[in-house]
C-alpha cells in the first residue's frame, strides 16, 4: 500500500480495490493471533510525540494492545479462535471465517474512529474498504504510517484500502456498498440514513453504530459529598471535553438526585472551577461559527424560558453549565454545554429514556441503588452503564452490539463420519 489514503474519483477504482482486497483475503488466511501481534506493535509505535495531541490517541494506544483485544476476540469468537482452529460444539465443530470485504463509513467527528472500525473487521480476517472523512484524512494517514512501519510484510496493510472522496459523491458511496460483504456505519442521523439506504448486496451484513446521545446521573451521597465532589467534577469534565462533546458517548445532561442539605448551586460552582481548569489545559483550537451561535442560543433560551433557571458560562463559547430542574432531557447543544438537572428520583428519569440514549455515566454511592438503576436503564434502551469519567472507553459490546462477531461467519461442521 504505497499511498495510504487515495483520493478516489471513479466507481471503477473502488471496484478494483475491493477485488484486490477480496483476492488477498481468500488467498492468504491470517489468524487473530498474528493480527494481535502486529496491532500490539502498532500500539507501541503510536507513542509518538507528534500524535499525542490527537484526541483519543492515548486511549487508542491502550485499546490496540494485545492485553485489551485478546479477551475481546476470545469472548466474541470463542476458545481456539486465536489460532484459527475449530472448536468443538457438541457433535459439531465451529470456526469463524471472514465475511470478505467490509466497508467502513466512520463519522467525521471522532479522530480515531476509522482505526477502531477497521481493527474490528481486521480481527475477523476481513479486507477493509474505508471511506475516510475529509477532516480525518491527515490524522488517519499519520496513524496508518505507524502501522506500515511495524507491518513490514504488509500482512495487514495489504488488507486495507482507504479512500477519500467528497461526501456528496453518491456514485462512489454506491460503488463501495456494491463491493462489500459487510458494512460498519458510524455517524449522525442524516449520514447513517443515507449510507444505510445504499445498494448493498443482499448477503451483506450491515451494522450501524449511532447516532445516539448520552447522559450522566449522580445520587446526592455522591454529588453532595464535599470531599469527593471535586474528583467527580473532574471525571465529568473529562467526559464532556473529549471529542468536544460531539461523540455519541458524550454526556449532554447530568441528573442530580435531590438530597437533604445538599445544594446544587454549590455543586455547579465547583463544576465551574473544574471546567475552567479543564479549559486552560485543553483549550479549543477552532470552532464552527454555527456551533458558537448554537451555544449562545442555548444559554439565552435556557435563562429566558424560566426565571428559576441558572447558567454559568464565560464570555467566550468555551463551556456552559445550565442549571435547572426536571426529568426531561433538553435537546443537546454539544460544544461543552452541559445541562445539570435536579430531580427527585433518578429511576423516574431513567423511565423516560427512549432508546436513543447510549451511555449512562453514573456516580452512585449506594451499590444496591446502582443495581436498580442499571436494571432500569437496560430496560429503557441504554446500552452502556459506566462510571463517570469512563464514558468514552470504547469496549465490546458497543451500542449493544459485539464488535468483531458481526463481521465474521461462524461456520458449523457436522462430521459425516459420525
Amino acid at each position: 500500500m504505497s499511498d495510504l489514503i487515495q483520493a478516489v474519483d471513479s466507481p471503477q477504482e473502488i471496484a478494483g480495490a475491493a477485488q484486490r482486497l477480496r483476492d488477498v483475503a481468500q488467498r492468504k488466511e491470517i489468524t487473530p493471533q498474528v493480527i494481535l501481534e502486529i496491532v500490539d506493535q502498532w500500539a507501541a509505535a503510536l507513542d509518538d510525540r507528534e500524535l499525542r495531541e490527537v484526541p483519543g490517541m492515548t486511549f487508542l494506544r491502550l485499546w490496540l494492545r494485545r492485553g485489551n483485544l485478546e479477551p475481546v476476540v476470545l469472548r466474541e469468537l470463542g476458545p481456539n479462535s486465536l489460532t484459527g482452529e475449530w472448536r468443538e460444539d457438541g457433535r459439531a465443530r465451529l470456526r469463524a471465517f471472514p465475511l470478505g470485504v467490509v466497508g467502513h463509513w466512520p463519522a467525521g467527528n471522532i479522530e480515531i474512529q476509522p482505526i477502531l472500525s477497521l481493527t474490528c473487521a481486521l480481527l475477523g480476517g476481513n479486507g477493509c474498504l474505508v471511506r475516510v472523512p475529509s477532516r480525518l484524512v491527515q490524522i488517519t494517514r499519520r496513524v496508518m504510517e505507524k502501522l506500515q512501519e511495524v507491518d513490514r510484510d504488509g500482512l495487514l496493510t495489504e488488507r486495507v484500502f482507504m479512500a477519500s472522496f467528497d461526501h456528496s459523491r453518491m456514485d462512489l458511496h454506491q460503488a463501495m456498498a456494491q463491493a462489500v460483504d459487510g458494512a460498519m456505519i458510524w455517524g449522525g442521523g442524516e449520514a447513517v440514513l443515507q449510507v444505510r439506504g445504499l445498494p448493498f448486496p443482499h448477503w451483506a451484513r450491515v451494522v450501524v453504530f449511532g447516532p445516539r446521545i448520552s447522559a450522566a446521573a449522580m445520587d446526592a451521597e455522591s454529588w453532595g459529598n464535599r470531599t469527593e465532589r471535586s474528583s467527580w467534577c473532574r471525571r465529568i469534565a473529562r467526559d464532556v471535553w473529549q471529542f468536544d462533546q460531539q461523540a455519541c458517548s458524550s454526556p449532554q445532561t447530568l441528573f442530580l438526585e435531590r438530597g437533604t442539605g445538599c445544594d446544587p448551586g454549590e455543586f455547579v460552582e465547583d463544576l465551574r472551577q473544574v471546567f475552567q481548569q479543564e479549559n486552560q489545559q485543553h483549550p479549543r483550537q477552532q470552532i464552527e461559527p454555527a456551533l458558537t451561535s448554537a451555544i449562545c442560543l442555548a444559554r439565552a433560551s435556557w435563562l429566558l424560558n424560566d426565571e428559576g433557571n441558572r447558567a454559568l458560562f464565560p464570555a467566550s463559547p468555551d463551556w456552559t453549565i445550565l442549571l435547572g430542574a426536571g426529568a426531561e432531557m433538553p435537546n443537546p447543544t454539544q460544544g461543552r454545554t452541559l445541562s445539570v438537572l435536579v430531580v427527585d428520583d433518578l429511576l423516574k428519569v431513567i423511565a423516560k429514556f427512549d432508546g436513543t440514549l447510549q451511555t449512562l455515566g453514573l456516580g452512585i454511592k449506594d451499590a444496591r441503588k446502582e443495581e436498580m438503576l442499571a436494571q432500569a436503564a437496560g430496560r429503557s434502551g441504554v446500552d452502556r452503564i459506566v462510571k463517570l469519567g469512563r464514558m468514552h472507553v470504547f469496549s465490546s459490546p458497543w451500542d449493544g452490539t459485539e464488535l468483531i462477531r458481526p463481521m465474521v461467519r461462524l461456520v458449523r461442521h457436522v462430521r459425516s463420519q459420525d
Partner: protein
Amino acid sequence: MSTLEEIEQGIESLLTRPPYGGDPQQRNSALLALLKKELAYACDRNPHFRNYVEQWPIDFCGADKIADLPYLPVGVFKANPPLALVSADDVKRTLTSSATTGQVPSRVVLDASTARRMAKGVITIIRDFIGPARRPYLVIDTPENLAAQPQLGARGAAIQALGSFATEVVCCLRLGQEGEPTLDLEKLLACAAKWKHVDVLVYGFTYVIWTHFVQPLQREGITLDISNVRVLHSGGWKRLDQQAVTREVFIHGVASVFGCSPDRVLDYYGMVENVGVIYPDCEHGNKHVPAFAEIIVRDPLTLAPVKAGQQGLIQVCSVLPTSFPGFLLLTEDLAEVIAYDECPCGRRGTSFRFAGRAPKAEVRGCGNLEARRSHQTQGSGVA
C-alpha cells in the same frame, strides 16, 4: 421624567444627528450610556430577560465598552409568544422574518413609538444615500405586500419603510392564476414612458427582482430606459447563490433592464429584529453604521471583537426598539470589518462587508440525533 421618557429623549437626540458624522468614540459613549439605560429598563419590564442579564458574566452597569454588554442571539425571537417589553394591548404590529421553507420565522413586536422610530431610522439612512427628494416609487412586488396588516413580513416592512420617499407608488407584479407573482408588463411600460426623465426609486427583494423582473424582461429583450433610477434591494443572496447568480451578474442584469449605470443599484443588509437600521453599500462597497446603532464583529472562537481585516459573527446594536429587547443581537451572519473609521466615502465609524450566513456545521457526528425515538412516536400519532 420617567425612565422611558428619558430613553425616548436620548433616542430622539441620536436620530436627529447626521447619521454618519461625528467622532466614533463620542458616538460610542453616547450609545453605551443609552444602551445601559435601555437594558435596565428591559430588566424591569421582563423578569425572564432580567434573569438572562443577571447571569451574564460581566455586570453591565460597570461595563465601559458596548462589546461587554449582554447580547441576545437572534434565534430567541423564534420563540412563541415573542419576547416583549410591552403588554399585548400595546402591540401595534408584529414583524415576521422571511424564513425559508420549513424554518420558524422570527417575530418582533412593535408598539407605536418603536414603529415610528423604525420608519424614522430607515428614512435617515436612505436619505444619506439617495437624497431627501420625493419621487415615484416602483415596487417590484405584488400590491398584497403593501397593505397595512397587523402581522407584517420582512418584505412588506421593507417596502413600507421607503414609502415616505414616494410621490406615487406602483407595484409592477400581480398574482397570477395560480398565485405566483407575474410581471404586469403593460403597467410597467406605461410607468417607464411616464418616468423617463424623472428620478425614480425602486425597491424589491433580491431574488424577487431577479426571478420576476429581470429574467422576464431579458427574455423579452426589453430595456425600460429609466436611467435616473435608484434600485434598492435586500433579503439576502441564498436563492441566487443556489442559481449561481453572482452579485456582478445581478447588478449588471438590473442595470441593463433599467438602462442605468450599475452604481445605481444598491444592496443593503438588514433584518426584522434590527428594526429601523439598514446597511446599504457605499460607493466603495462598504456598509456603514448610523449614529443610533453599532456593529460588533465577534471571533467565533472567543466571541471577542475582531480586528480590522478579520471576519466573524455580526452583532447588531441599536437603541431604537423599546417594545422588545432588540438592542444587542448576535446574528448568525458573518462579516469582515474593513475599518473602524475613515472609509474613503467620508462616512465615519465602523465599515464592514457582509460575508454570508454562517454555514451549517459540517461534521455530523455520531452524537448528532436528527430525531428522538419518543419525539417520532409523538409525531406519528393519528389525530
